[in-house]
């Protein structure tokens, strides 16, 4: 193959990983993963525990070798390079700061290994300390700073050599909620200021939605969907993605009418619903549609498409969740924003109906 077009960015090309385990059958941790991560993108790998996020990150960093496929950086294959020869740096989940070195020496370590002149190292370290707001702590031992500060030192250490790609493996998972929110904003700021590609791993869907340019949702070693947060939230590709990202209601019905991008679905209870379709469906086929709880509206009995009874009312401060038991015996969740002074829209045990405004329902692809 002639590869004269150097595609910028990080290309993961049909990568698979099989772990050989003594005395046990081989375990496939990654299966045919293909991703193209653009330069200066904030790209997130999102998925439940054990889905292979860390394994993929370790292969980009060079700690693990793919069993199949190739990884290319700006068009050049890097699969054969050892970690120390890849222009890629990692922020480790447990930070992995060198305990015998000061904060400044930790940050300067990469540049020192690259044999940069002393003056340049000092200048860059000072700049990094400013970037992560740790100027006063330069001479401290890494054991003498707080968790959040350690996290920032780990970030500065990985950014100092100006890698082309920065890998972050759940860097915020050890922080408390408030610090976590602060660091999310800091991370976005640093990514904008440095222009480096970030590959971020998390299993927190909210974190993924707020921070990413694009998200890859993974499950059991496969990539299920890649897209902007909005795409993934509004048009989940399948049941797993819909369920994993945010709360979802699933309804089953038959396709009774089709037009460009829209279909009508006859639900089990006889009501007909308009839904958008990301891919093609066949006339008369069974389809599953997904409706987000905040897109559904509670209405008086008989007004909406689905009838039911309020089973539980949960107050969340900003909004209230109503669990509705429908006529078919399923539970449907409706989320309504609270306004000041409002009493709850409905009480427990009350008969209600669910109104679905046009365009809120999406057909899931490839679901019977």
């Amino acid at each position, binding site marked *: 193959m002639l590869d004269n077009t150097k595609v910028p960015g990080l290309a993961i090309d049909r990568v698979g990983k099989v772990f050989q385990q003594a005395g046990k059958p081989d375990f496939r941790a990654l299966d045919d993963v293909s991703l193209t991560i653009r330069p200066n993108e904030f790209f997130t790998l999102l998925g439940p525990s054990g889905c292979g996020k860390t394994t993929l990150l370790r292969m980009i*960093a*060079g*700690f693990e070798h793919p069993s199949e496929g190739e990884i290319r950086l700006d068009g050049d294959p890097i699969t054969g390079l*050892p*970690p*120390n*020869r890849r222009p*890629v*740096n*990692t922020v*480790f989940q*447990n930070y*992995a*700061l*060198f*305990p*015998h070195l000061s904060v400044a020496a930790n940050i300067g*370590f*990469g540049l020192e*290994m*690259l044999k940069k002149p002393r003056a340049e190292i000092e200048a860059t370290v000072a700049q990094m300390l400013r970037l992560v707001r740790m100027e006063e702590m330069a001479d401290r031992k890494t054991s003498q700073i707080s968790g959040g500060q350690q996290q920032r030192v780990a970030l500065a*250490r*990985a950014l100092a*050599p100006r890698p082309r790609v920065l890998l972050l493996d759940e860097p915020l998972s050890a922080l408390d909620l408030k610090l976590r929110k602060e660091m999310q904003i800091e991370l976005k700021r640093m990514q904008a200021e440095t222009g480096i590609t970030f590959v971020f791993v998390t299993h927190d869907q909210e974190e993924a939605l707020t921070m990413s340019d694009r998200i890859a949702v993974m499950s059991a070693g496969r990539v299920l969907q890649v897209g902007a947060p909005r795409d993934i939230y509004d048009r989940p590709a399948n049941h797993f993605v819909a369920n994993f990202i945010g709360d979802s209601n699933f309804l089953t019905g038959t396709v009774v009418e089709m037009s460009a991008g829209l279909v009508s679905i006859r639900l089990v209870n006889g009501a007909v619903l308009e839904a958008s379709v990301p891919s093609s469906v066949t006339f008369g086929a069974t389809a599953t549609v997904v409706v987000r709880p905040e897109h559904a509206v509670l209405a008086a009995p008989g007004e909406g498409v689905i009838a039911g009874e309020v089973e539980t009312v949960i107050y969340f401060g900003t909004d209230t969740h109503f669990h509705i038991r429908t006529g078919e015996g399923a539970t449907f969740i409706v989320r309504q924003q609270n306004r000041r002074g409002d009493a709850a829209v409905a009480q427990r045990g009350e008969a209600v109906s669910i109104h679905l405004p046009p365009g809120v329902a999406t057909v899931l692809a490839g679901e019977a």
Partner: protein
Amino acid sequence: MRARPATARAGQKATDVRYQPGFFTVALVCLIVLYAPIFVLVGLSFNANTVVTSWTGFTLDWFAKAVQNDDFYSAAANTLTISLSATVFSTMLATAAALGTTRGQPWRGQGAAYMTISLPLMVPEIITAVATLAFFSLLASVFGINFGIGNLIIAHTVFCIPFAYMPIRARLEDMDLTLDYAAADLYATPWATFWRITLPLLLPGIIAGAALAFIVSFDDFTITQLVAGPGQTTLPIYIWAKIRRPLTPEVNAMCTVLLMISVFFVSFSAFIGGRRR
């Protein structure tokens, strides 16, 4: 309300060995049996009387005599040559062995290697001594090879390895492997990673291991006695030979010097090992 903390403490007392009846007495007897002879020995090295068993007054003469004794000197020189060489070699080998059995990809036979390295700790020393003697006799008779004092250095290096290995391995197992990954990630070659990250963090373990190896080699008797050739007398052997003659407090003084050296190294290694924990 009041009773609860009291019962809690009573419950604790029941399982805490320190509150068992007779604990204090037993502990005291053990300590006396262990240390009293040593204190008596040290005390008698300051005894002015030539008869070891009766105290007549304080003197430092025996130390002066011991230090002026040429044989004591050459034995001390031999001991230090052998112990220091054996310490350096065995610590280096033990460090390499510890790295090989804890780092990198797990390999077939890793458990067996660990067993093989630590097994000599459990083999009776006299067996090791006889085997070592047979080995060197074979070398000398079949190949005509004799390393002189090198024979003793080799023998000591070999039996010191497991002693040096244990603390180094313990330290390595405590160490976070992701630090090595982090160094490699930050462009450090495997060699640079070893010198800049692994070795500095491992140093307390290496020092503790070296101190242990030194002590074990320094006071070794059985193996040295069998392997040593003429003119290769070490301190323990010299003292043992002297005890068979009419016993003078000079021997006590020599033992006290040995004891002080041992105590110094053990304290040093405990201090280093205890730091950074």
